[in-house]
């Protein structure tokens, strides 16, 4: 009876009271999406224009009056030397982040689960979660306290032991390591909790059986724990690969204190490049929009591919 009624409700073209009320309830949010998500997508037309502000007319009129540029803006960006550098940096940093972002938290999650004193384990967890709640601006000051060329604690120690101080903020060879360390530092507690949640869900009888068969705790971790959490590891791995063209703007821009010129090539990513171009009046807005759109399209493709793979492995974890 109810299913028939439902079918009738679904098929009839008349709006019921429920339809109307639910639509209204979601309406404010829908408006928000139109203005802050979809209107900007429309703004991407800029990337195909030679945009000039026409005096006395609004933005859309100016946009309409501006000449079409075809793919010139994209060609300019893709052919520049900067592009190869940005691509290399963004992808390489992300690959390292993804690998370390799995290996370290999984290891820590496995061993924190072994501790006798569960209450102590909770305390460690809470303390390790702390960096997750800080902004990169604040963290950049933390880093500065260590790396300041004349007063930073590392150089103070170096000078006390007779070594020469290092000018951290102008030497690019150190930055890949510093950025990787900071990224791991900020995310390790959070990721550990994700893996720990799935480790505590593993059926304990498997461990008991393994113990009776004489397996050591290490062997149990290797042959029970890791295979049991493999699905979630794979899922997080693939989803992160989907975001390989994104970068955490705050990490690259704030921790380096606004990207000094001397380390520009070592720490620039798509996001920092776009931000700097946007604030530079000498770069045309069309070219900046093209760079931004290139990144969005790449992200879209990688996310879709990643999702397609996830769907092959586990239907429920896919976002589509």
């Amino acid at each position, binding site marked *: 009876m109810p299913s028939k009624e439902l079918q009738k409700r679904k098929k009839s073209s008349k709006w019921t009271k429920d339809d109307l009320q639910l*639509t209204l309830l*979601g309406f404010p949010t829908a408006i928000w999406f139109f203005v802050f998500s979809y209107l*900007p997508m429309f703004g991407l037309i800029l990337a195909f224009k030679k945009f000039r502000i026409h005096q006395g007319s609004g933005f859309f009129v100016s946009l309409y009056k501006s000449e079409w540029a075809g793919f010139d803006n994209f060609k300019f960006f893709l052919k520049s030397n900067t592009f190869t550098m940005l691509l290399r940096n963004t992808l390489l940093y992300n690959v390292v982040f993804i690998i370390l972002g799995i290996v370290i938290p999984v290891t820590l999650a496995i061993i924190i689960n072994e501790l006798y004193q569960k209450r102590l384990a909770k305390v460690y967890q809470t303390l390790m979660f702390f960096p997750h709640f800080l*902004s990169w601006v604040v963290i950049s000051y933390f880093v500065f306290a260590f790396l300041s060329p004349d007063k930073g604690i590392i150089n103070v120690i170096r000078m006390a032991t007779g070594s020469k101080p290092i000018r951290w903020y102008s030497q690019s060879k150190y930055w890949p390591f510093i950025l990787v360390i900071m990224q791991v530092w900020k995310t390790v*507690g959070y990721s550990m909790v994700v893996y720990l949640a799935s480790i505590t869900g593993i059926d304990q009888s498997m461990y008991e059986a393994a113990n009776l068969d004489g397996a050591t705790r290490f062997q149990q971790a290797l042959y029970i724990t890791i295979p049991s959490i493999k699905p*979630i590891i794979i899922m997080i791995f693939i989803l992160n690969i989907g975001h390989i063209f994104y970068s955490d703007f705050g990490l690259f821009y704030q921790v380096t204190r606004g990207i000094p010129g001397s380390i520009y090539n070592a720490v620039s990513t798509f996001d920092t490049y776009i931000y700097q171009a946007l604030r530079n009046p000498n770069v045309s807005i069309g070219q900046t929009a093209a760079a931004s759109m290139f990144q969005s*399209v790449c992200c879209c493709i990688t996310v879709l591919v990643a999702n397609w793979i996830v769907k092959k492995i586990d239907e429920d974890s896919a976002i589509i």
Partner: protein
Amino acid sequence: MTNNNISNSNTVNSSIILQDDIKNKMKWNPNAIKSGTNVVFNIIFILVAFLCIFPFIFVFMLSISSEQSIREFGYRVIPQEFSTSAYKFLWGERDTIFNSFLVSVFVTAVGTALGVVLTTTMGYVLSRPHFKTKTFYTWLVFIPMIFNGGMVASYIINVNVLQLKDNIWVLILPLLVSSFNIIIAKTFFQTTIPESVIESARIDGASQFRTYLSIVVPISKPVFATIALFLTFGYWNDWFLSSLYITKRNLVSLQALLNNMMGAIEYIANNPTAGLSLTEYKMQMPSETVRMAIAVVIVIPIACAYPFFQKYFITGLTIGAVKG
């Protein structure tokens, strides 16, 4: 009679087993790591946990060092000489600091309140099984997860079309809703609210608004708390929107203030007091410690609050893990 006996022996048995269990737990779990390994693991975690909070302790110590000892010896964990001059200076500049604090609090409070309403209403709507606009709304929320206009297009729209530059709402509106939060809310409603409860409210003649307000809201506190916390920390920690859109001094939030001071410490000190010239004033300023003191002022509320809210973060994270 026999029945009674059996049940009696059963309880006796089970109580013995229980006792054994407790003894076992207290004495020795045969399938645990060796106690030596336990010590080593504890040491590892003490180190890791220490590394995670040490930078904050260090910056706090710097903020209570005297400017003189920093000039002479550089940054040290235990300062040569303690001083509260940085905090006194901030107190002297309390107009600026307090204004920034108010901006941060206003943005966080209004943003969180509005964001929670917009997120959970849409989450509730999408969790309903059948209604006319379901497909449309689902795609509306879903598409931004895979494609977005990017930084430049949003900037152009916010500045040129919506005219939001140097407007307090530019710090609030762009972060109000995220598809991810909506999906967390939707998944929560789908899995925890029994369909029969909502159906019976409908039969009793309650409108969808009424159902949302008097049935969904009261029994869904965990998900409201989770989303509110995501938003609170997002707003409190945001400096990016300020750096793009805010130039007016009276709209600078705490994070933005700290960000602006990175290049020019004198950003905070535009209003010399007590008849000093600007240069004299800058000379007197404990510039090294003031930066650290502002960082401490930002972090203290977070450091005090997060241990209590951590569990809601974990809730959100596990709901999020269930579905995308």
